[in-house]
């Protein structure tokens, strides 16, 4: 009950800042442009490279939205509380560090999820004009959520490392880009760890998810990174006690 209370406050806190509206607005706009382009592209008469929703989840623009907007969602979670000193009142309230971190994580992930809600219109629109295969659409959303669950945890960890929101966003962006780009090493020939990079290639993951392929190894990967990041955040919060 206490935890739910905390999540509610953390979630409400987004909307006291203009960042929330900018993030939701930007994602809605970018996704709309993307959808428009995809539909125009597919109706141009050339042989279609894929289904519209499949492209929505695996085009470059998708990554632009994920990689640029997610750090903006998570940047303030700890950095702001550290900056204003409210972290002290928060940590001296009778709640555990784990609960503080989880509340922030869940509220960030909820916000991320809400950011994607407007895109539900697109399958609805498509379904209105033609029949669409709902399987790949659902798995596409599953992948989007999974990657969000991982990146939100990474973002919170980065935010706990600094008292400056901009710095938090930049570190998060750098770490996310590193995670994202390291997957591209799978295309480098002659690397002994090639198959490893294949496992963590986010772009490849989303291409599969968008096609309707749900590989649980990928979900386990996201969950592992998320759990590790949350654990590390709790440790960072605890370490603050010892180093001032």
């Amino acid at each position, binding site marked *: 009950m206490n935890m739910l209370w*905390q999540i509610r406050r953390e979630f409400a806190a987004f909307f006291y800042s203009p960042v929330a509206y900018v993030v939701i607005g930007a994602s809605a706009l970018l996704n709309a442009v993307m959808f428009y382009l995809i539909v125009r592209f597919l109706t141009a008469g050339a042989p279609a490279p894929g289904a519209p929703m499949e492209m929505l989840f695996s085009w470059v623009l998708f990554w632009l939205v994920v990689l640029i907007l997610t750090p903006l969602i998570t940047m303030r979670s700890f950095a702001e509380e550290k900056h204003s000193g409210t972290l002290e009142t928060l940590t*001296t309230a*009778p709640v555990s560090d784990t609960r503080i971190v989880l509340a922030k994580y869940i509220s960030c992930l909820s916000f991320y999820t809400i950011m994607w809600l407007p895109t539900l219109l697109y399958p609805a629109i498509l379904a209105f004009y033609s029949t669409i295969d709902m399987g790949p659409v659902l798995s596409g959303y599953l992948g989007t959520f999974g990657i969000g669950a991982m990146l939100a945890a990474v973002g919170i960890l980065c935010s706990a490392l600094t008292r400056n929101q901009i710095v938090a966003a930049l570190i998060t962006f750098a770490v996310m880009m590193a995670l994202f780009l390291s997957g591209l090493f799978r295309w480098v020939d002659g690397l002994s760890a090639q198959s490893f990079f294949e496992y963590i290639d986010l772009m490849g993951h989303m291409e599969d998810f968008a096609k309707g392929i749900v590989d649980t190894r990928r979900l386990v990967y996201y969950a592992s990174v998320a759990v590790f990041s949350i654990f590390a955040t709790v440790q960072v919060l605890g370490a603050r006690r010892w180093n001032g």
Partner: protein
Amino acid sequence: MIKVEHLTKRYAAVDAVDDISFEIGKHEIVGFLGPNGAGKSTTLKVLTCSHGASSGKVTIDGKDIFEDAEGVKTVIGYLPENVPLYPELRVREYLTYRAGLKGISRAYRNDAINKSIARCRIKDVEHRIIGQLSKGYRQRVGLADALLADPKILILDEPTVGLDPNQIRDVRELIKALGRERTVILSSHILPEVEAVCSRVIIINKGKIVGQGRPGELRAQLQQRGQSIVVEVKDPNSVAFETLKRIPGIESITVKNSPSQFQLIWTPGNNSAANICEQIFDAAVARGFKLLGMQSIAQSLEDIFVEIITQESDAAATADFAATDGQARPTEPKERSK
């Protein structure tokens, strides 16, 4: 209620708190007094489980703070230095959130908030945005938050910093009233404040406790160390100066505000103030200089404070000197024997 044993808190290079021990009983108002950077805030942060300690043991309300931090947090209401608040929330919203966070059940929440609001007299701003409040109101909102869960122990870090004199008086009255039914610890670098509010004072300097007692006791302690008499002399000259200096029981003599005023520090020992004054008078008559006035001065807590702190650094300096001295001696004979 609170028992601190050999608490040490070390930051990278400095000992912020160095092996301090003290005990605080029920319904005491204890003031931590010390210059800025003395380790007051650090001590309070350790007590509130906001910071860890390098070593030592702290028991609050029978619970070890390093083992049962959450249990300890429920009995403490804490007002941190600078009163961090969420500026975007309204006062009542903020208190409601904090009440939920402190686990006050829904049934009692409104009562608890109303009580806190009434106590801290912030009823008229309860629907205003915190970011737009004056410093005085913000301070009281912080205090209202600390009081929400009706804690047994109230820890206030510099509760009156940045307030105007009226607000300071209000806050002091409030603290006194609160101290009647709970334990209050506050920190301050302002002496009259501690003297006015606290039943006991702990003076901290450079991470160490350098004195403690009731404000009255501390004054008595210093009176044992030396009291002063200010003597005003007509046409002051070296004769007068030397004569006064030689009076038995006088420790030191300094020229005060004007050249005709001398401040004499004397040790009580066998003397009384009247006795000393008599001797001064006799000496003046014998050596033929005229006294315009004599005044025995009881020292304020402020003087004690300054004295204890300067003595402490003097003592440290002598200790350093003694240490190097001690090292120098054994090497000297060796060289000589060569």
